[in-house]
């Protein structure tokens, strides 16, 4: 009897280990249709923002690295600023997120972030500093840019690239679909750009 119990004990330990492995292999990620991962981050002015603060509004998250050549291209042609203005004019909350680790390409402190915002003419609600990359990893942000759109009820409705490298802007299209009460036609797409410098 005692022997049997011991075997059960080992088996449950093994199961526990398997669960831990399964969890570490599949970190929490942003999934379209599910609740967007919660976060609290400080912006370039030291103000704290919690995703829950924006309940009732559409939120766009833009992973960015101002030195990444692909990001540079989107700002040099003015396309990203134009999309930001279009969205924020319609009361969308636009949060740029910097997950570059200290010492890596695109890392900024608050003052540097504000200089980037001014220099590039960002039309954003805030630039959030994700120094340890925790929020970026929680979302599975792969590239700069990598875009997410969150509905007023906190659900993720878009995860992917800013555009199709042609005339279709996926973020604009997702918001327009949502406002018209349609299902988002392209809810995911392969993001492209530089890897996020965690």
């Amino acid at each position, binding site marked *: 009897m005692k022997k049997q119990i011991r075997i059960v004990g080992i088996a449950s330990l093994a199961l526990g280990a398997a669960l831990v492995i399964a969890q570490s292999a599949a970190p929490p*990620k942003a999934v379209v249709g599910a609740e967007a991962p919660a976060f609290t981050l400080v912006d370039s002015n030291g103000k704290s923002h919690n995703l829950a603060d924006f309940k009732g509004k559409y939120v766009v998250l833009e992973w960015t690295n101002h*030195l*990444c*050549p*692909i990001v*540079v*291209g989107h700002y040099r042609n003015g396309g990203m600023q134009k999309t930001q203005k279009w969205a924020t004019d319609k009361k969308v909350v636009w949060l740029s997120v910097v997950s570059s680790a200290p010492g*890596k*390409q695109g890392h900024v402190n608050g003052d540097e972030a504000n200089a980037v915002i001014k220099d590039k003419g960002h039309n954003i609600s805030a630039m959030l500093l994700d120094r340890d990359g925790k929020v970026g990893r929680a979302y*599975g942000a*792969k*590239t700069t840019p990598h875009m997410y759109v969150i509905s007023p009820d906190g659900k993720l409705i878009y*995860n*992917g690239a800013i555009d199709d490298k042609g005339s279709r802007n996926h973020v604009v299209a997702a918001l327009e679909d949502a406002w018209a009460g349609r299902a988002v036609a*392209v*809810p*995911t*797409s*392969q*993001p*492209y*750009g*530089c*890897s996020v*410098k*965690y």
Partner: protein
Amino acid sequence: MVLASVVFSVVSVSVVPEVRKFAPGVPFDVAIKADLADGWHSYWLNPGDSGAAPKIDWQLPRGWRTDSPRFPTPKRIPMEGQMTYGYENGTYFLVRITPPAKTGLNVTLRGTSKWMVCQETCVMENHGVVFDMVRANSSLANPEWKETWRTSLPGAQRGWSFSARRVKGNIVLRIGGAGALGEGTYFFAGSGGIVNHQAAQVWTADARGQSITIPVSEFASGPIKRLRGVLQPGNGEAGVKIVVTVVQ
């Protein structure tokens, strides 16, 4: 037949046309070659999880036409928890150029090649390519041209057949008519949002033939109707171009 601006100099670019003299209306290939500084890499048509393929914008005389670049089979290059598709050290791509039926005796062909290259940091470099050519009644080969640039590009494989079927989160690609391709056989999808770039693809051989199981991308939007890309056999043979309909 060379060369390029050197500003940051991660990339040095040179151009080698297939012919020294061109004949009106007769197409020829041009090799755009790049050498990269140690530790840097450039990208394939589909760069994988991050990166960007090189591009070339041509400024050609009237009537001259160019086709899209053709790239060698890439390698998988892991990068900080991601999987990218590209090339380390040196690489090249080919562009087919077609002169018009009527053209001047001497022409200068110009383009700007754009290279995104990364190690931990990514940079974009622009390199001009310029070369002069002379018209003749028939083409004259350029001794600097290496025919292996063309023959080693992925091509169709005669006698091979492909079929693909969606099975839950995977696409099973069956390959008929080929010898044993071996473990490590890998399908490079020609665009993003098709294949999970990071996931292993498992090769199996049984009585029915051989197949690889390809995990689908989390960024796939809607059903994947077609696989288009390059199959790199695990046995080291040259990459094979594939276009196959996916049965749902």
